[in-house]
C-alpha cells in the first residue's frame, strides 16, 4: 500500500506524562521526567507496586532512586492500577511494560487516549508501535497517535522494593524513531529536550530490527531448557552460552541482518554491537560469549522456562543486557 500523504506534523507540547509500568525502567523514567518539570502519573497492574507511589493519601507520592547516577526522590502526581484515573490528560505515555503486554495495555487505554498523544516505548521490542496502534484502533480509538520506539532502555537497573529503584547507568546514544517516520524529525527536539540520550534513526523498521534481546534470549533459554525447568542454577551467559549455543544465536542474527538488508535499513551485527558496547575485538560471537565481565556474573532468569518464552516470543524481552555495570549488579559477588 502506498504511503498516505500527511500534513506537516507539529508535535504537541509535552507537559503531562503517564508512565505505565512501575518497574525499574518505569520508576527511573518517571523520576527523570518529573525532574524535567513534567507532571507525572503512574500506573501498574500490580497494586503493591503502586501503593508507595501514593502514600501521602492526597493522591501524590514519590519515587525514590538510588544507585549513584540519579539519586533522590521525585514527585508523582498520581498513581493507580486503573488507567481511567491516571491516563486522561496525558500528552506523553511511557510504556515500560513487558513487550507481550503491549496490545493489552493499548486496548485498556483506548477509551482514555488523548488526541495526538505520543506513546514512547521503553524499549520498543519489535513493532510495538504498530501493535499498539492496531490494538487501540480495534478497541475503538479514532484519534491521532504517535508511537515512538527505542532500541533499548535508557535506564538500567532493578527495583529493590516497590517505588524504589537502583539505577546503575543512563545509557547514551539510544536510537529512536516515530511511526510514521516523517514525524521523527519534528519530534526529535521535543523528546531530546527531555531525554538527551535519544538519537533519531530512519524508521521503526530500524529500531524494531535491532532487537538484540530477541536474538539472544530465546536461543540461550531453549538450549538450557532442561536445567532451567529443573531449577538447576547456572550462570546464564557464562555457563549457558557455550560455543554450540552461540552458533544458533549467530544463525538467528544472520537472519535478522538479512531482513535489515531486504528493508534497506542500516544494520549492525550482534557481534559488532557486542564488541562496540563492551569494547572488545572478538572475531566471533562464539569467542565473545565466554569470559567477558558482563556475562560472568549474570544469572539465569528466575522464572520458569514457560514464563521466559512467553515474555520473549511476541516482541523480544525487556531485560537489558547493554550495561556491564548492570550485569555485575544483578548477582551479588
Amino acid at each position, binding site marked *: 500500500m502506498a504511503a498516505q500523504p500527511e500534513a506537516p506534523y507539529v508535535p504537541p507540547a509535552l507537559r503531562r506524562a503517564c508512565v505505565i509500568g512501575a518497574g525499574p525502567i518505569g520508576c527511573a523514567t518517571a523520576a527523570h521526567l518529573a525532574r524535567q518539570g513534567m507532571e507525572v502519573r503512574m500506573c501498574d497492574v500490580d497494586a503493591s507496586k503502586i501503593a508507595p507511589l501514593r502514600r501521602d493519601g492526597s493522591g501524590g507520592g514519590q519515587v525514590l532512586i538510588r544507585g549513584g547516577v540519579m539519586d533522590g526522590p521525585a514527585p508523582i502526581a498520581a498513581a493507580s492500577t486503573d488507567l481511567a484515573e491516571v491516563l486522561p490528560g496525558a500528552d506523553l505515555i511511557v510504556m515500560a511494560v513487558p513487550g507481550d503486554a503491549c496490545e493489552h495495555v493499548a486496548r485498556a487505554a483506548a477509551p482514555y487516549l488523548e488526541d495526538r498523544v505520543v506513546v514512547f516505548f521503553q524499549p520498543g521490542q519489535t513493532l510495538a508501535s504498530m501493535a499498539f496502534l492496531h490494538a487501540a484502533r480495534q478497541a475503538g480509538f479514532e484519534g491521532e497517535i504517535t508511537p515512538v520506539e527505542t532500541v533499548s532502555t535508557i535506564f538500567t537497573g532493578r527495583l529493590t522494593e516497590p517505588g524504589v529503584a537502583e539505577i546503575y547507568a543512563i545509557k547514551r546514544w539510544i536510537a529512536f524513531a516515530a511511526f510514521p517516520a516523517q514525524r521523527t524529525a519534528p519530534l526529535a527536539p521535543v523528546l531530546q529536550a527531555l531525554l538527551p540520550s535519544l538519537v533519531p534513526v530512519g524508521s521503526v523498521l530500524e529500531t524494531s530490527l535491532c532487537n538484540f534481546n530477541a536474538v539472544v534470549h530465546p536461543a540461550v533459554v531453549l538450549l538450557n531448557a*532442561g536445567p532451567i525447568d529443573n531449577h538447576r542454577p547456572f550462570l546464564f551467559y557464562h555457563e549457558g552460552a557455550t560455543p554450540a549455543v552461540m552458533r544458533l544465536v549467530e544463525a538467528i542474527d544472520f537472519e535478522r541482518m538479512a531482513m535489515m538488508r531486504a528493508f534497506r535499513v542500516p544494520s549492525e551485527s550482534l557481534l559488532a554491537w557486542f564488541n562496540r558496547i563492551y569494547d572488545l575485538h572478538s572475531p566471533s560471537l562464539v569467542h565473545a560469549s565466554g569470559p567477558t565481565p558482563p556475562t560472568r556474573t549474570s544469572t539465569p532468569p528466575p522464572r520458569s522456562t514457560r514464563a521466559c518464552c512467553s515474555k520473549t516470543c511476541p516482541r523480544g524481552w525487556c531485560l537489558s543486557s547493554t550495561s556491564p555495570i548492570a550485569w555485575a549488579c544483578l548477582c551479588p559477588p
Partner: protein
Amino acid sequence: MKIAILGAGNLGLAQAAHLSSLGHDICIWNRTAARIDEILARGGIEVHGVFEGLFPVAVASDDLAEVLIGAEAVILTVPASSHVAVTAAAAPYLADGMVYVLHPGHTFGAIACHHRLVAMGHRLDLTFCEVQTSLFTCRRTGPAQVHVSAVKKALPIAVFPAERGFDALGFLFEAHPDLVRARDTLQTSLDNLNASVHPAVVLANMARIDRGEAFLFYWDGVSPAVARLIAAVDAERYAIGEALDIDVMTLEEFYESAYEAQGALLHDKMLNCAPYAEIHAPKTLDTRLVFEDLLTGLVPYASLGRAVGVLTPACDALISLWSIVLERDFRVGARTLESMDLAHLDAEGLRRFVWTGLR
C-alpha cells in the same frame, strides 16, 4: 546354522553370545581389529548378567569376506547411520537366500539397504528383517566382555518384502520366542521411539553437555517442558502412523509396557523408569543420540510426513536447530523417501512397496 554378526559393540557381543549359546556357528566382524583380537585371545565372548559364561565364536575377523561367505543369516548390529555403508562394503560377499537382519532397523533400515544394493547393480534375493529396537539391555565392559541386564520381551519384527512372511526367521524366533510379527517394515520403522526422545533431550540440555557437565540424562535432563517437546515429536510420529493405517505404539504406551513405568504424564513415566537411574548424559554433542536419531529417525519421519500429508513442525524444528548448531545439513545423507527413490509414492503406494518390494 552359520550366522554372521556385523559389529562387535554392546549389542553385537550380546547377540553373538546368545546365538552361540544355542549352538549356532557365529562369525563376528568388527571394523576395528582390536576387539577382534581380544575375542580371539579369550576364545570367545564373556557374558555377565542375566546369562553368564564364555561363548565361543567360529570366526572373528575384521575382514567381511571371512565372516560372510557361507553364512545363512547376517545380523547388523552397527549404528543405524552405518547400515548402508556396511551393507555396501558387504555386498560382494552376500548371496541369494541369505536373511539380512537389521538389529535394530531404526527407520527405513531395510529399504535403505535394499535400495543401496539395487543401486549398486546387485540382483540379490535377500530376505530383509527389521527388529524394532535392541533385543538386549546391555553394555560392553571390555573388548570381548558384555554385561547383559535384560533380554527384552515381545519386541516387534518385520520382514521386507512383507509378503515373504516369517518362514526364513525360524532361528530368530527360536532364540527369542516371544518376538511379535509386525505387519511390515513401515510399522517397525515408525516404532523408532529413540528418535522421539534423544534429539529433543540433548537439545534442551545442549549447553551443559557442550561444556562437559556430567548429569543423569533422563532423570536430570528431562523436565516437564522437555517432556512436552518429546510428546510433540511423538504425536507427529503417531499421526504419520495413522495416515499409513499403522497402529503405532505411543511413547507413553511403551513406557508402560516395556518398563512398567506409571505416571499421569509422560514426564512422570520417564521419572518412574527405573533403568534410567544409570543412564548418564553423553559427554559431547557429537553423539549417536543426535546424528543417528536425526539421519535414521527424525529426517525420515519428516519425509514420510510430507508423503502422507502430515505436518511435522516439531521434527522440522529439531532438524533445523541441530543442523545449525552442528554446522551440518542433516537432511543431506539421511534416509528420506527422495534418497531411496520412493518420493513418488503416497500412503497406499508405500504400503504396497513394503509388501512386494517392487517399485
